[in-house]
Each structure stands twice: as structure tokens, then as C-alpha cells.
């Protein structure tokens, strides 16, 4: 376990160096969050009765989403890993006395945590300074706060496990771009990135909620804004655990078999 902890820490330290990039990303997120809030405001002013949640709950969702974007943006692939599989340098990693999948997982989680911790505070601050109902408000009942934090951890695991599944598939296909493009598009639509899931039409929403993508940002953000209430939490978090187990198992087996049949060329 200690080895993987070191990989995690190494990645964390390395990513914390990129402060300028974080600053730029942060300002982008502030503007995007603002535009998003303004957009829904237009709908809310016109048809408040058709809103599936309060405007304040939605604003909290949007600002939290912008603040923690780095934790769940699926398009944040680790191109070093993808390249290492494609070019065969992954062979070097096999010389280490660590499990490849475990090391990848530690790196992926470390990168996401570092990026998020650099970017989140200013967004959270600006979001909470905005006037109601357009700002970020702590609406979560105290008894669910612990569960919110737990669901954040589960979310990061789902996202990383999904990333790793795609890396594992790279052993079998020559160009993983197609899978990556499709995953990102599906996650945008089914995971509540473009439109929060409660705004989707009935039928489609129920389908989306079962997919692994809905076990990502959708769960913690909606627990935080009070849209998922205490009685519903065991169900959605159970689904998160289910997807973590399934995705990790699938990714682990794919990677192991991929390594077994991989033939590395070169001297």
C-alpha cells in the first residue's frame, strides 16, 4: 500500500507546481459558471413552477460543479499512460515491483486531487459571495454532510476506474480515440454535466441515472444541494459502489490480460 501512496504523493506534488495553469483554468470556470447561472435564471424568471429544484439549489450545483471540475472531468486523460501503452514503454513499468493497475489508479487520483485543490477555493469563495439565489449556499442538512464527503470519494473512484478501463482497452485497439470521444460525449449528457439530471425528460432521466456516468458528479452535487434526500442516499451510493467494483474489476482484468498477450517489440 505504501508504494501506491508514494505514487499518489509524487503526482500530487508534481501537479501542484502548475499554478499558472490553475489560475487560467479557474478564471475560465468563473465565467462559465456565471454564464450558466444567468442562463438558468432566464428560465427561472419565466417558469419558476416548472423548476425541479429551487434556483438556489441549482446555483449551488453549478458553482460546486465548477469548483470541483478537475475531480470529474472525464476528458482529462493521462496521455503519458496512453502513449506508454501505444508505444510499448509500458514495459519499463512492468520492471517495477508494483501492480500496474494500482499504480495507474494512484497516479490518476493524485492528478485529480492536486488539480482540484489548486482551483477550488477561489471558485467556492466567489460563488458564496454572490447574492441569493444566484450564489453558492451551504444547504446540506448537517446529518448528510458526512455522506456528501463519502460520495465525493466514491465519485473520484468511479471516474478514475472509468479512465483506467479505457487505458486497459488501449491494449486491444490501435486507436483509443473513438472510445474516448464517445465516453466523453456520453458522460456529458448522461452524467449531468450539460444539464443537471432532474431537468431531463422523464424516461430518459431514469435511464441516465442507472449508467456509470450518473455515479460521477451527479451524486455528490445533488446530495450537497439537497436534491437527493437522506432516504434516497443509500440507493444512489450503493449504485456508486456497484460501479466502482464493476469498473475496477473489468479494468483490472483487461489490463492483466492485455499485458499477458502484449508483445513488446524493440531491443
Amino acid at each position, binding site marked *: 500500500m505504501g508504494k501506491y501512496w508514494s505514487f499518489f504523493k509524487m503526482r500530487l506534488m508534481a501537479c501542484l507546481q502548475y499554478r499558472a*495553469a490553475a489560475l*487560467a*483554468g479557474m*478564471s*475560465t470556470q468563473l*465565467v*462559465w459558471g456565471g*454564464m450558466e447561472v*444567468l*442562463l438558468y*435564471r*432566464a*428560465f427561472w424568471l*419565466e*417558469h419558476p413552477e*416548472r423548476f425541479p429544484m429551487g434556483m438556489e439549489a441549482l446555483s449551488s450545483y453549478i458553482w460546486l460543479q465548477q469548483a470541483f471540475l478537475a475531480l470529474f472531468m472525464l476528458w482529462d486523460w493521462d496521455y503519458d499512460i496512453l502513449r506508454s501503452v501505444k508505444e510499448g514503454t509500458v514495459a519499463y513499468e512492468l520492471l517495477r515491483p508494483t501492480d500496474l493497475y494500482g499504480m495507474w489508479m494512484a497516479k490518476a487520483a493524485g492528478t485529480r486531487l492536486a488539480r482540484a485543490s489548486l482551483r477550488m477555493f477561489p471558485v467556492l469563495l466567489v460563488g458564496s459571495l454572490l447574492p441569493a439565489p444566484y450564489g453558492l449556499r451551504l444547504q446540506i442538512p448537517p446529518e448528510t454532510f458526512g455522506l456528501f464527503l463519502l460520495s465525493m470519494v466514491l465519485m473520484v473512484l468511479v471516474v478514475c476506474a472509468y479512465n483506467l478501463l479505457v487505458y486497459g482497452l488501449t491494449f486491444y485497439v490501435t*486507436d483509443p*480515440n*473513438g472510445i474516448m*470521444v*464517445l465516453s466523453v*460525449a456520453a458522460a*456529458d*449528457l448522461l452524467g449531468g454535466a*450539460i*444539464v443537471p439530471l432532474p*431537468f*431531463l*425528460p422523464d424516461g*430518459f432521466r431514469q435511464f441516465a441515472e442507472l449508467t456509470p456516468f450518473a455515479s460521477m458528479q451527479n451524486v455528490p452535487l445533488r446530495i450537497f444541494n439537497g436534491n437527493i434526500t437522506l432516504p434516497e442516499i443509500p440507493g444512489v451510493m450503493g449504485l456508486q459502489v456497484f460501479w466502482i467494483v464493476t469498473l475496477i474489476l473489468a479494468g483490472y482484468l483487461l489490463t492483466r490480460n492485455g499485458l499477458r498477450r502484449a508483445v513488446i517489440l524493440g531491443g
Partner: protein
Amino acid sequence: MKLYLKFLSIHVRSAMTYRASFFLSCLGHLLITTNVFLSVVFLLDRFGSVGGYTLPQLSLCYAVILAGTSLAECFARGIDAFGRILSEAQFDRIMLRPRPLLFQVLCQDMKPTMFARVLQAAVMLVWAIGSGAVVWTPVKAIVLALMILCGAGVFFGVYLVNACVTFFTLEHIEALNIFMDGPREYGKYPFGIYGKPVLLVLTFLVPLALVQHWPLQYLFDRGPAWYGLLPIVSLVFLIPCGLLWRLGVRHYRSTGS
């Protein structure tokens, strides 16, 4: 012009060498914009209308923006690679050649995959036109064409400003992506939806509302006819962009050895 077509055919041919990957990235571009449009469909399904606009009207609005950005990206995103051209000192080589600088930079890279989005915009336009969002007259058709063409012009100006900034910073500024990718995302609704301050910025600072929000008012019979001429006015934006480019070129010191 002949030279430009030559460059275009080179880029198309080089993209077609990896056919599968060409179509995959077309598909990728399409999925992103389809998702954006689906979000409009879903919200309108729930709310019926927003700001007095109906779904066919909004799809006309998005088609205009999509066509404008895709055309600009298709032919002018070569400017995107400008940071690399500068940092690898390729600009020195470009300056030695007896052709206009900007022309050469544009020819360095083109994105034929963006044609897919132009096609998508065309499909949406046809649907919106057929669904009776607008009572068409010949003048309105001309205004629509102006909106798309001038839209591409304004986006080109935005890319140009972005490139000019790299003259001074020598690296790409990520924050400017707000003005590069943002309008495509938020142009799905007429900019007036976002409130007065946003509309003012996009009218007078970066005149994107002049090719989208204001002429749309005319097309939907919600504003006077002279709004239809505003797309032409938006091209004034290209003057400061051009001046900035000249300033940048004068400021340029090679990074190469």
C-alpha cells in the same frame, strides 16, 4: 487564391491519409455540438419557451453560430497553432517568404474535420427554415447569409487577437478560450437571454451579438429592419484586430537560435 487552394488541398489530403481517424474526429466534433443542441431540446421540452423564443427559433440561432464558428475554425484555426509557430521560431522562416504574413500563418494549418459541423449547421438551418420559425422574404435570406459570413469574420478576429497575445506572452493563454470556445457553447441562445451586461459586452466589446442577437430580432419580426444591417457593422471589429496584429509583428523578437 490559387496558392490558398493548393494549401487547402494539401491539408485535406493529409487529413484523408488517416481516414478512420479523420471520420472519428468528425464524429467527435459532431457529438459535442449535438450534445449542446440536445441540452436546448431538453430544457425547451420542460419549459416550452425562454425569452419568448421557441425551439425552431433557437435552433436557427444555434445554426447561425455553429456555421460561423465552424467556418472560422475550418479556415483560420491555423492561428491556433501560432504559439507553436512562435516558440519554435518558425515565424522567422515565414517572414523570409515573399507572401503576406497572415496569409502564410493561416495556411499552416486548417481543420477539414470542421466541415462536419458546417454540414450539421446546414441541416439545422433547413429544419428551422422549414418549421416556420421565420416568415421568409428575400431580404431576410440575405440577412441570414450575412449573419453567418460576418459571424465567421468576427470569430476570425477573436482568433487573431488570441494569436497576437502570444507575440507578447510567447505562450498560449488558456483564459482566452472563454472567447474562443465559449461563444459556440453559449451562442445556442440569443445573447439577450443572459441579461443586459452580457449583451452590452457582446455588442460593443466583442461584437458577437451583432451577428446573432440583434439581426435575429429582425428575422423574428421583433425589431426594426436596420438591425438586419448590423452584421456588416460587426466587421469593424476586424480593424483593431488587424492593428494589433501589426503591432505584434513589429514587437516580434525571434525566439530561435
